[in-house]
């Protein structure tokens, strides 16, 4: 078995030796440099732009403004395109805008010979604005009379969806029900990949070539073409190794602008390198979502009825839009099914920077809300938090009516049991009851449920090409990208497994080139091992069959009597090695009668997806007077089906837990109420965890093979973030008796809540 083994990453040597080339490493250092003039107002109409002083700066090649930009509206979301107009992403952006919708919007650009000249010119551009009132809060933006961002969207409502099951209004009339109600709020946070978004563009033979740090090469190619109003085939996009994405790069960022800029300077090479401050202020962020949950419970905690409202802050442009809010909303009644459920989700435009995809895609927010609320139910009804969850969570055999996804095994209990054992939950829960004093400890739990991939909401497809070399080794190409998670290594294992090749004989072509790489939509939705896994297996199965048919020519054995094992053509009846794959590949490639280059390309459409499960346990120590939380212990347990590469899976979980810890305790983008300006857009003021802010991160697994999956596996990229903040929140509640319904639980909030609770 090659699948299931912890091979070292296929790119590990190059990355360890420092020779791996990322976008900037590949860019010719004589490239022209582009810089963007960002607005210093949150909402305005650009009246005029004076570039006369900027143009005089030595080294400046060209200054362009929103009045020069093509009049093409384009979408940015990393979604598969739809041929049905109603399902298409919203086209609401220009490469430079005349209508400023957030503080930092892109108004003009400078192309110069170096960054100093470009920066000097940017400062000298004078923009005259007709300043408009602005709104930062989602619910404020929904009110009549609030500033309007987009003409078409009344009250700034980008979308509203409603889910109804049973009859909520009738159900709450049942006598003796206990009402538990809460508001839960999550912050705006940023991805903070260490490589900033960067791209460079030039023209070649009448086409526009772009190299970009993106998760979604084929989609970005399409967005660039839409932005420039050119035929989609005019664009060629290269994606080298990328220094992390986490969803920010699942969006067309500045690739369309950069592509347009090169066309304005005769196709000369133009580099657009986001500074860290721009990554914070002008890229995407996680949606801040406010939840309102009302639960009606019987004495034993069973749920008679539930109502959920979500208000998702979209920021200035649609990007991924309502999909995030909707994904979260849809989870409530699946994780804890209730016969009488009413759910409303609103996604609202505000004058904040644009929210897009971020690891978890609405689920870290929703899981925080529902698992905090579940704990509040347990507290109010005096129920055991573990037993209550065991009793009310999605039962084995549950099938979702819409997606047809199913819970096949007793995974929640299995995950909980592992977590309880590791962290010694029962004993500590008793020990931490009735504490007094300044420093107190607590322990908490949260479940996790996650839906892999995007079918049936959107298209799921993966194309794969395999090309054999003379030595019997193969190249594998897919459109699903390596972004640090280890996808290339997983594909290598999968291809080797199905084709019967040694691991070393499979070469995954890591860097995508949209002219060459088969169509695939990219890295997102924790879909790589699941969907691309089916793409790889589909191609490998067909390739193997074809190879055996070709082998017949030389072995005169029927294909069904042969197999490929460890790189050899083997007769299955007696196990004899008939020839090596290398011999076969060489013979057929140079065969003067039956010459053939052994290749296979196949598109696999996927019409299923899978649930991922898990839980998190956290143990904290709270220093009440100092308003500080120390995370003492934490474990995530995941069921992502069969692990393709356990070591890489464990590493994925660590990264997700880390992001979850930041979401719980420290990370928050702060905006100035007076101007709409981001206040802490740098890595010093934005509190990303350092190594000193983490305890040991324990990752464990339950491996229930996923029946619908090519290799028994399913999503693990995003799930680890989701249950962490609620587990920590519940641990703090256990320690202090204070329920935090807002994230992050940073010292400021603790000061406020502990003061109110009279704990000082």
């Amino acid at each position, binding site marked *: 078995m090659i699948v299931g083994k912890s091979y070292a990453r296929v790119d590990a040597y190059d990355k360890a030796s420092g020779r791996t080339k990322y976008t900037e490493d590949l860019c010719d250092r004589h490239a022209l440099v582009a810089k963007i003039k960002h607005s210093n107002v949150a909402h305005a109409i650009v009246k005029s732009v004076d570039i006369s002083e900027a143009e005089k700066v030595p080294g400046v090649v060209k200054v362009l403004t929103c009045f020069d930009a093509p009049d093409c509206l384009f979408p940015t979301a990393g979604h598969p395109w739809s041929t049905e107009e109603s399902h298409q992403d919203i086209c609401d952006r220009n490469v430079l805008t005349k209508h400023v919708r957030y503080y930092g919007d892109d108004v003009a650009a400078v192309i110069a010979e*170096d*960054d*100093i000249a470009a*920066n*000097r010119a940017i*400062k000298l551009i004078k923009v005259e604005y007709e300043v408009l009132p602005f709104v930062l809060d989602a619910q404020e933006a929904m009110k009549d009379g609030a500033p309007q961002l987009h003409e078409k969207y009344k009250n700034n409502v980008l979308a509203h969806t409603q889910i109804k099951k049973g009859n909520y209004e009738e159900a709450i009339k049942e006598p003796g029900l206990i009402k538990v109600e809460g508001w839960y709020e999550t912050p705006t946070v940023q991805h903070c990949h260490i490589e900033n978004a960067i791209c460079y563009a030039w023209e070649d033979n009448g086409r526009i070539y772009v190299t970009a740090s993106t998760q979604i090469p084929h989609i970005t190619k399409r967005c660039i073409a839409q932005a420039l109003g050119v035929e989609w085939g005019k664009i060629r996009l290269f994606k080298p190794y990328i220094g992390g994405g986490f969803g920010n790069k699942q969006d067309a960022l500045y690739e369309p602008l950069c592509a347009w800029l090169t066309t304005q300077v005769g196709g000369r090479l133009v580099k657009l390198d986001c500074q860290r401050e721009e990554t914070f202020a002008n890229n995407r962020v996680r949606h801040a979502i406010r939840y309102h949950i009302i639960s009606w419970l019987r004495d034993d905690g069973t749920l008679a009825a539930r109502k959920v409202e979500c208000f998702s802050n979209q920021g200035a442009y649609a990007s991924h839009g309502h999909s995030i809010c909707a994904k979260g909303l849809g989870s409530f009644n699946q994780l804890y099914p209730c016969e009488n459920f009413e759910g409303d989700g609103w996604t609202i435009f505000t004058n904040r920077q644009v929210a897009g995809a971020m690891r978890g895609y609405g689920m870290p927010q929703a899981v925080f809300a529902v698992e905090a609320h579940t704990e509040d139910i347990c507290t109010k009804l005096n129920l055991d938090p573990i037993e209550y969850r065991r009793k009310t969570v999605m039962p084995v055999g549950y099938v979702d009516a819409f997606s047809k996804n199913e819970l096949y095994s007793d995974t929640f209990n299995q995950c909980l049991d592992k977590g309880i054992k590791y962290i010694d939950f029962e004993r500590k829960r008793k020990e931490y009851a009735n504490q007094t004093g300044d420093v107190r400890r607590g322990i908490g739990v949260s479940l996790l449920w996650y839906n892999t991939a995007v079918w049936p909401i959107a298209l799921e497809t993966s194309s794969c090409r395999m090309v054999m070399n003379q030595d019997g080794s193969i190249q594998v190409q897919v459109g699903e990208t390596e972004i640090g998670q280890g996808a290339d290594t997983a594909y290598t294992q999968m291809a080797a497994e199905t084709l019967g090749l040694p691991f070393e004989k499979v070469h995954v072509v890591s860097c995508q080139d949209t002219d060459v790489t088969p169509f695939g939509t990219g890295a997102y939705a924790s879909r790589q091992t699941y969907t691309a896994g089916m793409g790889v297996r589909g191609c490998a199965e067909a390739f193997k069959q074809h190879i055996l048919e070709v082998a017949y020519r030389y072995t005169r054995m029927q294909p069904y009597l042969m197999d490929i094992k460890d790189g050899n053509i083997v007769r299955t009846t007696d196990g004899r090695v008939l020839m090596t794959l290398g011999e076969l590949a060489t013979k057929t490639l140079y065969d003067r009668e039956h010459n053939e280059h052994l290749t296979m390309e196949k598109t696999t459409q996927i019409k299923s997806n899978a649930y991922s499960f898990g839980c998190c346990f956290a143990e904290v120590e709270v220093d009440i*007077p*100092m*308003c500080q939380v120390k995370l003492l212990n934490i474990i995530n347990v995941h069921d992502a089906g069969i692990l393709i590469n356990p070591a890489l899976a464990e590493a994925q979980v660590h990264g997700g837990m880390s992001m979850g810890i930041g979401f719980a305790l*420290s990370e928050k983008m*702060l905006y*100035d109420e007076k101007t709409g300006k981001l*206040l*802490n857009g740098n*890595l*010093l*003021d934005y*509190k990303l*965890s*350092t*190594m*000193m*802010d983490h305890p040991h991160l324990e990752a464990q697994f339950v491996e229930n093979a996923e029946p619908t999956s090519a290799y028994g596996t399913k999503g693990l990229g995003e799930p680890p973030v989701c249950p962490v903040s609620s587990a920590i929140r519940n641990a703090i509640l256990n320690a202090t008796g204070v329920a935090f319904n807002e994230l992050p639980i*940073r*010292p*400021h909030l603790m*000061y406020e809540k502990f*003061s109110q609770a009279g704990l*000082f």
Partner: protein
Amino acid sequence: MYDVEAIYEAKTVAEAIKLRQEHPKAVIIAGGSDVLIKIREGKLAGCELISIYGVDEIRGVKLEDDGTLRIGSLTSFSHITKNELIQKYINVLGEAVDKVGGPQIRAIGTIGGNTCNGVTSADSASTLMAWDAIIELTGPEGVRRVPIEKFYLGAGKVDIHEGEIQTGVLIPKTSYENCKGHYIKYGMRNAMEIATTGCSVNVRLSPDKKIVERLRIGYGVAAPVPIRAHKTEEKFNSAPVSMQTAEGISKAVLEDVNPRDSWRASKDMRLHLCSEMAKRAFIEAVRLCGGEI
């Protein structure tokens, strides 16, 4: 690339003073962890720089004949922490500067830069305040010594005359003798942090460890510049070593500090922390001196 008009490099104090006279508008750059960031932000873009990074004669720590501890202004934080004289006489300073940023920042950041930028959040400043450090400035007219409390003129403003550079930070023997201190930095994470508030407390106890002979409390981010809690000190000099004293100090400091509201933290929260930190730092300083509470 940094947007600077020109860079003049000094290798000696004399050269630095000469360059200061020749280019009065040029900005002094020591380690650069502050100045280079301001250039990048645009605040100092287009400036001229006088680099004193190569002036090795003002690097290092030594004990002078009269017992004064001399810390050369270009001594980096990491070298201060590792220095044996610092560890022996003013350990708390080594600990305080060991809380600056992360290891690489501590390798480049200098104590001179940390004081000359006049920033209230500087991790060395509250301790230097609390230990009555003397700032040594050298200029065309010779050497000038200024008590650190007088060196700070206002937020971001310090008492450096034209032609001068800071050459040393001095701790007199009377300050460090029989004295131990403790610094608490309050930050939102455990590394790569600027202080929300910082409190440095040191004490000298009576020989029987029952009486606080001398109490000194320094704060960062409790006012526009680093400050001393003089009223509290006066009140509790000669107080008994006790929890009651600790609690008393905790309350009294509220009369000395004057933090402001900002997006980084509210005034109320800072006041609360100033109070709690004074208590905790005092208790720890007493413990280090051999006292018991």
